[in-house]
């Protein structure tokens, strides 16, 4: 049953490698990491609120801080920042900012 043996051997090897990589990732993420604490310290010190991932427009650079209608504000006829802008909701921020005046309590 040579073929079955070969197939199982290859699959066990590949699966072990995959599980090993997944397990390694899980271990790296869950273990307390010096570099993670350093990044947290940096965020705390500078008061950062967003990742510096997409710097092409205000609302893509700081999506959590963006205005409600940030898209197209750069220039009246400015085209959309595709693909980034096309897939960010105009108002990605959730609940607190839309609290109605009458609901608030002093």
């Amino acid at each position, binding site marked *: *049953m040579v*073929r*079955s043996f070969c*197939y199982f051997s290859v*699959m066990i090897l*590949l*699966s072990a*490698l*995959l599980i090993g990589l*997944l397990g390694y*990732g*899980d271990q*790296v*993420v869950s273990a307390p990491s010096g570099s993670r604490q*350093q*990044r*947290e*310290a*940096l*965020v*705390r*010190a*500078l*008061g*950062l*609120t*967003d*990742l*510096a*991932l*997409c*710097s*092409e*427009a*205000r609302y893509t*650079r700081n*999506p*959590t*801080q*963006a*205005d*409600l*209608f940030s898209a197209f504000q750069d220039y009246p006829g400015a085209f959309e*920042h*595709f*693909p*980034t*802008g*096309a*897939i*960010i*909701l105009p108002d*990605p921020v*959730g609940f*607190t*900012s839309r*609290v109605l*005046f009458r609901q*608030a309590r*002093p």
Partner: protein
Amino acid sequence: MRRQLKILEYTLSSLWRRKFKNLSLIAVYSLTIAALGSVLLLTHALKQEALTSLSAAPELVVQRVAGGRHELIPVSYAATIAALPGVTAVTPRVWGYFYDSLIKANLTLLGIGEEPGRLELLDGRLPTTEQECAIGDGVRQAFGPGLNDVLVLEDSGSRRVEYRIVGVFASASNLLTNDLVVLTEPAIRKFFLIAPGMATDLAVAVPNPREIKTLAKKIKYHLPDTRPISRAEILHTYDSLFNWRSGMLLAVAAAALLAFCILAWDKATGISVEEKQEIGILKALGWETADVLTSKFWEGLVISLTAFVIGLLAAWIHVFLFKAPALTPLLKGWSVLFPDFQLNPSVDLYQVCVLAFLTIIPYLACTMVPAWKTADSDPEQVMRN
């Protein structure tokens, strides 16, 4: 068990007989799964990075909104907010965007007040005078100058301003600082012509997380032209952002997967004359319907499981070893300064299981269902046809 292994042996032999076709099928299927898997792994890792790093973001950020647009906020609002119980500190933040026409990139300029102490991810130090700055690694690479060199920018009055670079953020912090230029607060006010009584927004420290939502409502009540943004909302944004962001890429990859399924279904539903004849012969020789279907099951499982394992391995290597070169252009969009980052290999097992389910089960169905009718027919009828 022995019977299963023998049928598997026959199935592998049958697959190997058409090795070119089946190996091509595995290759294409693996590529599709690798594309899909890469999207899932990259967006999940980015999300995790955001959620862990930004867990130290300010508890509340208060903006001012006028006419639906973000406006500068009076620093005097800080006193009103600081008076609310539960608030321990209110820090005016002065920051903004700067477009440099030379490198055609947007920079984020950030002003700092008192020095926060030593930062491990900073090579050098933070600026202490108006003529100093600290820059992100992306800015250093784009402009050229390094530590102790001079960075030249054009301020809001179109004046040429020079800053000595006293600190460069380490590449390990690129995801957070890639396009940053940190100046002292007086320097940034001068740069953006922001009056001393105004700020971009206010960072509010609230030690008790259970009070944040209530305080946000109180701030909104007392200062109706403000817009409080909590840390939870910041994290929620990134939680949903990469789902949306990956949604586009996922749509592309899903379209590819769907096309592949259509091809596979087309192949499977038009069960070939040779396959029908083979099934007829096996049944005539004493194979039961269940044995034939078991063979088809193994055939589908071998191909789809092999493709899944190879595809996911390729996705992991593509994203975490090679930093996803095929996907980052899509995420980068129009950004000129895109951070070169190394992600933690964080994987969501639920997503992996869903991917496995979506890739293996449909293919099994595609392989077994069309053969069912033939396998269930009398062998004489099959061979006669």
